[in-house]
């Protein structure tokens, strides 16, 4: 392996470790959940992406085989991180009622999406579901 590849892989590893640490530090240090969500969803995702790119580059240059598994892990993590953040934020909003009181009015017929879901039209509702 050349010197340049060594430097590139090492700096990607440093970048990944730094951003993983920054994300967890934000999780531990920020005051409430909506602010704590920023650390793990953005910084940690960038960190794990850099680490996986370093791994892919290392094994590509070591054995000349492009392994597809890192791409699989990267795709999976990048797809699931926003879903996780959405689920946690929704659980927080529905459990903690004080957030709903501070919201301004929407100015429309329906309220904010998590708190007041619009009722389904009569034709789409299945009659035998028992709701």
């Amino acid at each position, binding site marked *: 392996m050349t010197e340049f590849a*060594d*430097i590139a*892989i*090492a*700096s990607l*590893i*440093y970048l*990944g*470790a*730094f951003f*993983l*640490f920054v*994300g*967890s*530090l934000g*999780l*531990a240090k920020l005051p409430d*959940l909506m602010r*704590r*969500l920023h*650390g*793990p969803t953005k910084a*940690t*995702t960038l*960190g*794990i992406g850099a*680490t*996986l790119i*370093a*791994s892919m580059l*290392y*094994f590509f240059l*070591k054995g000349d085989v492009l*392994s597809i*598994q*890192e791409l*699989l*892990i990267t795709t*999976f*993590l990048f797809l*699931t991180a926003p*879903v*996780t953040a959405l*689920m*946690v*934020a*929704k*659980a*927080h909003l*529905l*459990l*903690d009622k004080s957030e709903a009181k501070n919201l301004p009015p929407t100015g429309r017929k329906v309220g904010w999406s998590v708190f007041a879901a619009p009722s389904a039209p009569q034709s789409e509702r299945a009659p035998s579901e028992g709701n």
Partner: protein
Amino acid sequence: MIETACAIAFVAISAAMLLCLYRVLVGPDMPTRILALDTLTINAIGLVVLAGIYWGTELYFEVALLFAMVGFLTTVAYCKYILRGNVME
């Protein structure tokens, strides 16, 4: 050079995992603990991938992939559980 980078990254990610563990233990409410557990899983994936680079083996990718899948599923299942009272409806 790569070995030194791996050693420093091991220390940094271990410190990050300790911070997540602090948030799991102290965290004032349930969603914070769930978020901290998810971050702990992502840090564990980073640690596993770095161990693969450090020892030069490709055996650990399945471990990392399984960690990713199980971490996501447990997070979604916990959120569903505290929202609805059960996981499968």
